[in-house]
C-alpha cells in the first residue's frame, strides 16, 4: 500500500501539476514533493514494506518493490532532494519543468525500490527521459547538445545491459525451465566462462556510465554545467547514485563470483578514477566543474568501498551514497545561487563574496567542509568505513584513498577561498533571502544529524546488507 503511495504521489502529482497554471506549478509541485517526504516518513516507521504483483506472467515479470536497508535511505534522499530542488527552482520555469521533476522523482523511486531485474531496467531507462527534456528545454546555450549526449551515452550502456538482463533470465530458464527476472532467484547461475566476462562487462559498463566513473564521464561536464542548478543537484545528488547502487543491487547477487574474480582489476580502475577526479577538480576554474569532478571522485570512492568486498567497505559505501547525495546536491544548489547572483561560473573573477553575503558564505563553507570529509560531518563517517574496509583488504588502495582525501580538502578549500575570501573586487552581491534559507537550514540540520549519528542509517542498512551480500559470503567473497 505504501509503495502505491510512494510511486503514485509523484506520478499523479506530475500530471496534476501539468494541469495547473504556470504560476501555481511550483507551489503545487512543492506540495506533492512534501507529501512524498511524508510518505517516506511513514515508511520509516514500519517494517520494510513490499509490493509484489504479477505484471507480465508470460515472462515471469513481477511488479516487485522493496524498501530494504540498501534502498530505504536512497528513497529518502530522492524524496528530500526533490523537495529541496523544487523549492530552489525558479518559478518562471513553468509547469512542464515541475512536471518533469516530479516524473523524475517517480522514476528514481521505482529504480531504487525495484528488485525485479526487468522492472529495474525499465526504471533505469525511464529515469533518463526527464533529464533529457530538462536539459533540452530549460538549460544554457549548449543544453540541447548536452541532453543528446546524456541520452545517447547512457542508452549506449543500458541497451547493452538489456542483452545482459535477458541473457541472465535465459540462462536461468535453461537451468530451471521457468522464466523469472526476480533478482533473488537469479543467483548461482551456471554462467559459462566464455559468457561471464561479457555479461559482467555489459552491466558494469552501464553502471559506470550512469555514475559516471572515469573514463565513461564524457556526458558529465556538459550536463552538470548546462543544467539549471536544481537539476544538476538532482543529477549529482540522486541519479549518480543509481550507478553505484547497481553494483550492489544487481551485480553482487547475480554475478558475485565474477565480482570476486575481477576484484583487483576493478579496484585499480576505480582508484584511477578516484585520482583522476580529484586532480581534475584541482585544476578547474569553473566552480560547477570543481564540484562535478569532486563528485566523480567521491563516486569512485563509493565504488572502491563496494569493490573492497568487505562488510565495512560496503556499509561505508551505502552510507556515503546517502550522505554524498545530500552534501553535493546542496553544494550545487548553493553554487547555483552564487551563479545567479554574480552571473558567472568562473571563480577566478570572483573574490570576497563573504563581505556582502555572509550567510551565503557560511552555508557554502558548511557543505564544502562536509564534502571534503571533516570529522563530525557525514563525509568523514562514510570515508572512514570505506578506509576501514580497504585497510583490511589491501593497504595500497587505502593509501591512495587517503592521499585523495587530502587533495579533496585542497580543491574544496581552493574553491571556497577563491569565491568567498579575499579582498572583494566585485560589487557586493545580495545575500540569501529567507526563502532560500528556509530550505537550506533543514538540509544543514539533516547533514549534521547524519554526521554525528551515522548509526541512524547504518543500523537500518546492516541487516539487509548482510542479506544482500549473502551469496557473496557463500562464495568467500566478503571478508
Amino acid at each position, binding site marked *: 500500500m505504501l509503495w502505491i503511495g510512494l510511486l503514485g504521489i509523484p506520478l499523479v502529482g506530475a500530471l496534476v501539476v501539468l494541469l495547473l497554471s504556470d504560476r501555481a506549478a511550483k507551489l503545487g509541485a512543492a506540495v506533492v514533493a512534501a507529501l512524498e517526504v511524508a510518505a517516506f516518513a511513514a515508511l520509516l516507521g514500519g517494517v520494510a514494506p513490499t509490493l509484489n504483483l504479477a*505484471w*507480465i506472467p508470460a515472462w515471469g515479470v513481477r511488479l516487485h518493490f522493496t524498501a530494504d536497508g540498501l534502498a530505504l535511505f536512497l528513497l529518502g534522499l530522492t524524496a528530500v532532494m526533490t523537495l529541496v530542488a523544487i523549492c530552489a527552482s525558479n518559478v518562471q520555469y513553468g509547469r512542464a519543468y515541475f512536471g518533469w521533476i516530479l516524473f523524475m522523482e517517480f522514476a528514481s523511486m521505482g529504480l531504487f525500490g525495484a528488485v525485479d531485474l526487468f522492472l529495474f531496467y*525499465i526504471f533505469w*531507462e525511464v529515469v533518463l*527521459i526527464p533529464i533529457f*527534456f530538462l536539459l533540452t528545454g530549460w538549460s544554457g546555450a549548449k543544453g540541447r547538445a548536452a541532453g*543528446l549526449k546524456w541520452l*545517447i551515452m547512457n542508452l549506449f550502456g543500458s541497451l547493452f545491459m538489456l*542483452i545482459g538482463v535477458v541473457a541472465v533470465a535465459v540462462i536461468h530458464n535453461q537451468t530451471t525451465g521457468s522464466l523469472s527476472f526476480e533478482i533473488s532467484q537469479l543467483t548461482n547461475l551456471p554462467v559459462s566462462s566464455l559468457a561471464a566476462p561479457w555479461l559482467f562487462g555489459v552491466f558494469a559498463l552501464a553502471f559506470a556510465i550512469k555514475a559516471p566513473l572515469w573514463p565513461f564521464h564524457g556526458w558529465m561536464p556538459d550536463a552538470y554545467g548546462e543544467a539549471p542548478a536544481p537539476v544538476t543537484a538532482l543529477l549529482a545528488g540522486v541519479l549518480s547514485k543509481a550507478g553505484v547502487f547497481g553494483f550492489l543491487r544487481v551485480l553482487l547477487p547475480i554475478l558475485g563470483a565474477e565480482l570476486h574474480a575481477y576484484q583487483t582489476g576493478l579496484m585499480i580502475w576505480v582508484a584511477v578514477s578516484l585520482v583522476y577526479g580529484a586532480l581534475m577538480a584541482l585544476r578547474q576554474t569553473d566552480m560547477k566543474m570543481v564540484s562535478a569532478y569532486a563528485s566523480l571522485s567521491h563516486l569512485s570512492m563509493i565504488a572502491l568501498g563496494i569493490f573492497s568486498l568487505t562488510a565495512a567497505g560496503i556499509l561505508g559505501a551505502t552510507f556515503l551514497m546517502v550522505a554524498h547525495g545530500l552534501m553535493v546536491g546542496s553544494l550545487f544548489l548553493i553554487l547555483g545561487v552564487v551563479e545567479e547572483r554574480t552571473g558567472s561560473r568562473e571563480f577566478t573573477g570572483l573574490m570576497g563574496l563573504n563581505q556582502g553575503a555572509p550567510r551565503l558564505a557560511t552555508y557554502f563553507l558548511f557543505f564544502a567542509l562536509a564534502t571534503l570529509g571533516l570529522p563530525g560531518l557525514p563525509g568523514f563517517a562514510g570515508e572512514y568505513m570505506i578506509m576501514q574496509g580497504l585497510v583490511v583488504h589491501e593497504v595500497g588502495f587505502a593509501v591512495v584513498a587517503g592521499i585523495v582525501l587530502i587533495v579533496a580538502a585542497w580543491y574544496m578549500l581552493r574553491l571556497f577561498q577563491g569565491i568567498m575570501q579575499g579582498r572583494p573586487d566585485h560589487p557586493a552581491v545580495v545575500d540569501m533571502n529567507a526563502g532560500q534559507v528556509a530550505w537550506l537550514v533543514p538540509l544543514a540540520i539533516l547533514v549534521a544529524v547524519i554526521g554525528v549519528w551515522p548509526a541512524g542509517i547504518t543500523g537500518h542498512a546492516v541487516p539487509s546488507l548482510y542479506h544482500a551480500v549473502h551469496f557473496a559470503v557463500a562464495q568467500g567473497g566478503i571478508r
Partner: protein
Amino acid sequence: MRYLLPEIIVAGGALLGLLAIVGVPKVRGLASWILLVALLAAGIDAATMWNVTPSLIVYNSMAIDKYGIAVTELVLLAGISTLLLAWNAEYFGEEFPVLVALSVLGMMGLGGATSLIPVFLGIELLSLPLYILAASRHTAEGGEAALKYLLLGAFSSGILLFGMALLYGATSTLIFVAYPGIASHAQVWLLWPGLALVVVGITFKLAIVPFHMWVPDVYEGSPTPVTNLMAFGTKVGAAIILLRILAFGFYGQASAWGLLLGYLAVLTMIVGNLLALPQTNLKRLLGYSGIGHAGFLLIGIATHNIQGAQAMMFYLLPYGLAAIAVFAVIRLLEGGPGGEDRGVTLTDLKGMAYQRPWLAMVLTVGMLSFAGIPLTGGFVGKFFLVQAALFANRPGFAVGIVVGTLVGLAAYLRPLQAMFQRDGVSERVRTMRWSAAGVVVVVVAVVGTIGIGVYPQPLVHIVSQSANFYWLKGG
C-alpha cells in the same frame, strides 16, 4: 462462407461505396462513412471468430486461424487510421476510401494465405490501389512517387511470380503448407532458386536492404494518409506472409535461411537507421525508420523459434501505433489544402513544445516508442526480440538489435529537440488546427502505445496464442 465474412464485408463495402459515389454524388463523404463502418464491422466480426478451430478452406488455399485473425485486426487498424487521417480532405477524391479498402482487403487475404495463389493475389490487390493512391494529389512529386512505386512494384511482382513458378515446378503444387512433406523428393535445383526469388520479391515490399531504395521517395511524395497505409499496412502484410511461407513451408531448411535473413536483418537495421540520421523531412525520416524497423521484424523471422514469431507479431502493433501517431502529427501540421505542397521539416516543429504542448506530447510518445524507450510499446517489442534472439542462441542478432537501435537514436531525438527551440514559433505550429478525426487517431495511437508499454500482458497473451497454433503446425 462464415469464415470469410470479414473479407466479404470489406469487399461489399467497397462495392457499396462505389455505388454510392455514382448513385448519390450529391452527398459528399458518403463513401467514407460506408467504408469506415465496413472496416469496423469487419474488425468486430473477425474478433468474434477468435476461438475458431483452425482449419483450411477454399481447397486448402486459405487458413482460418488466430494468426490470420490477428493480421486482419492489424491491417484494419491501418485502414481505419488511414481513412480518418484523410477525413474531409477534398483533393483525394471520392474514390479514396474505396481504394484504401481494396488495399486492406489484399492485406487481409495475405493473413490467411496457405497457397501461393492467394499470396500473389493479396500482394497485387494490396499494391495496385496504392499505386493510384500515391498519385492522388496530382502533383509532380506524387506522380514521381507513384511511377517509382509502380515500376519497382511491378519488377518485384515479376520476381515473386517467377519464384512461384519455380517452386511449382519443383513441387508440382502451389499449396506451400504441403511443401515439408514433399521436400524430400522435390527438384532441389528448382526449389532453392524459387525460394530465394519469392523471398526477394516479398522483401521488396517489406523494404529490406538492399531492396529499400524506393521507400524514401515514395513515402515523401505520397499524401500523408497513404504513406501511413504503406508504412503500417504493407509492412504487416509482407512480414506476416514471409513468416508464414518460411516457417510453414520451409522449416526444414531453417538453418540455411535463418542465418542469411539474420544477416540481412542486421544490415537493414543498421543501414536504415543510419540513413535516417541526416533526414530533416519528417516523412523521409519515417521512411528510413520504417526500413530500420523492417529489419527488426525480420529478426523475429530469422530466429525461427516460437519467441521470434511472437515477437514479430508483437512488434507490428507498437510500430504501427507509433507510425500512426507521427503521421497524425504531420497531417495536423500540414493543415488545409496546399499545406502538403511543402513537406513538414524539423524547422516546422519550432516552438511546438510551448505553443502546442499536447501535439508535442503525441510526437514525443511516437518518437520515444520508435527509439524503444521503456513505458512505450516499442521497448517491449525490442525486449521481446532480444529475448527471441537469445533463446535461439544467436547473441549476434541481439547485438545487431542494440547497435541498430543506438544508431537510430539521434534521428528520433532531433525532432524532439526541435520542438523545444525557443527562437520563435513556426508558421505551421501557429496555424495548426485540431480536427475531430485527427483527435480520435491521436488518442488511440498514444493510449495504445503507452498502454502496451505499461501493461503488455494482454498483447503478449494474444500473440502467444496467435503464433502458437501456427507453430505446432510448423513443428
